[in-house]
C-alpha cells in the first residue's frame, strides 16, 4: 500500500515535471530566438585588449539567470548517473541559462547605449540541492558580465 502511494507520487511528479518542464523549455527557446534577433547588432567579444581609441565611457554590464531543474530531468539524470554518458536533459538547461544570461547582459548594455561589450566572461554555479537532494530540486545559475563601451 505504502509502495503504491510512493509509486504514484513519483509518477505524478514525473508527469508534472515532463509536461510543465518541456512546455516551459519550448517557450523559453522561442523567446530566446526572438530576443536574440533584437540584440543582433550588439557585438560581444571576450577579448579585452587593443581597445578602440575613441572610447568615451565604459560600464560593467551583468546578466544573471537562475533556472530550476524539474523532477523529470532530475530522475533522467540520476538514471544516467548509473550507466554513464551525456546527460542530454541538462544540456538544454545549460544552453538556455547561458543564452538568457548573455541576452540580459546585452539588453542592459543596449539600454545604457553601448556600442559593444568587451571582455565578456561567463560564470556558473549550482544553487541548492546540487546533485540529488531529496527535497531541493536543484537549479543552475549563470552570470554573464563584460565591459560595455560607448
Amino acid at each position, binding site marked *: *500500500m505504502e*509502495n503504491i502511494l*510512493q*509509486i504514484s507520487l*513519483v509518477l505524478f*511528479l514525473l508527469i508534472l515535471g*515532463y509536461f510543465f518542464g*518541456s512546455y516551459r523549455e519550448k517557450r523559453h527557446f522561442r523567446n530566446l*530566438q526572438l530576443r*536574440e*534577433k533584437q540584440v*543582433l*547588432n550588439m*557585438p560581444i*567579444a571576450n577579448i579585452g585588449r*587593443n581597445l*578602440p581609441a575613441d572610447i568615451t565611457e565604459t560600464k560593467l554590464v551583468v546578466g544573471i539567470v537562475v533556472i530550476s531543474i524539474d*523532477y*523529470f*530531468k*532530475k*530522475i*533522467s539524470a*540520476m*538514471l*544516467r*548517473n*548509473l*550507466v554513464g554518458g*551525456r546527460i*542530454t*536533459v541538462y*544540456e*538544454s538547461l*545549460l*544552453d538556455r541559462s*547561458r543564452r538568457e544570461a548573455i541576452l540580459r547582459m546585452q539588453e542592459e548594455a543596449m539600454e545604457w547605449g553601448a556600442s*559593444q561589450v568587451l571582455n565578456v566572461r561567463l560564470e556558473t554555479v549550482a544553487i541548492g540541492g546540487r546533485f*540529488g*537532494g*531529496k527535497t531541493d530540486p536543484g537549479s543552475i545559475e549563470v552570470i554573464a558580465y563584460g565591459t560595455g563601451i560607448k
Partner: protein
Amino acid sequence: MSIKYVPKELPIDDNVNVTRRHPLKNFIYLLGTVVIISIIIFVLLGYTASWLATRIGADNEIRVGKLLYNTISETEVIDDRRIYYLDELLHDMLDVDEIARLPLTIHLLDTEIVNAAIMPGGHVLINTGLLQKVKSENELAFILSHELGHFQHQDPLKSLGRSLVVVSALAAVGIGTSSSSGGLSDIVSWTGELTILHYSRNQETKADEYGLARVINHYGHGGHSLDFFNGFQKFEDGERQLSQVSQYFASHPENQERIDYLNTLAVQKGWNMEGELTSLPDWIHCPDMDEEQCEAEN
C-alpha cells in the same frame, strides 16, 4: 586594429550545445537499462546469497535466530497452556520419521495482528490475533505446518541471506539507506522488492504443499484445513478494516488461487479433502490469567 563585426543569427535547429534527442525516448532507454540490470543483479545476488545462507551450519543459525528474535518488540505470552497446546500440535504435524532441522520453539505474541511466522533458528511466532480468528484445529494445523514447511526448506535463512545482500548492495551503491538520492533509490529498491516477492511466492507454494501433505498425514483428510483462507477471502472482499491482515498475506499467492491450487493437488494425489472437523480447546482465545472473565465474554 579593428575587427569587423558581422551579425549572424543562430540557426534554429542546429544548436551544437544541445543534443537533439527526445527526452522521453532518452528516459525510457535509461529506465529500461537500469531496471533490467537491477533485476539481473538482484536475481544473481539473491541466488548466491540464499545458497550461501543455507550453509552457515546449525550453531550459527541458532545464534542468528537468537539475535533476530531479540529484535521483536511485541510482548511474549509466557507460561500459558496455549503454548503447550501449540507446541504439541506443531510437533504432531511432523512425519513419523521426520526430524525438525533444529529444536522448534513456539513464541506466543500478544498482538491483534493476524499473523504467524517462522524465523531462523526454529522460532515459531504465533500472534494471539491469529488464535482469535481460527475456527478449528484443522485450520491451525495447516498454518503451523505451512510455517514448518518454510523452516524445513530453510526459507527463513534464504530470505535473510537475500535481504542482507540486497541491503548491502544498495548501501554499496550509496542508495537505499540515505535520503540523498530521492527517486533513484526507489526505482532500484522496488525492482529488488519485486524480484524478492516473486521468489518468495515460489517458496510459499512449496510450503503450502508441505503443509497440506502433513495435515493429510495427521488427520487422514484435508477437510476444513483451508477454511481459514476461505473465510479470509470473504473478509478481504468485504471489510476494509482488515487491511492489517492483507499486509501479512501480501507475499502469499492470491488466496483463491492458492486454495484452487491445493485442491487440484489433492485430486492429483488422491487426497481426501472432506472430513470431520477437529475442534479447538474452549480456552484457545483466553489467557490463563483471566479465565473467568474470558468465559463470561464467550
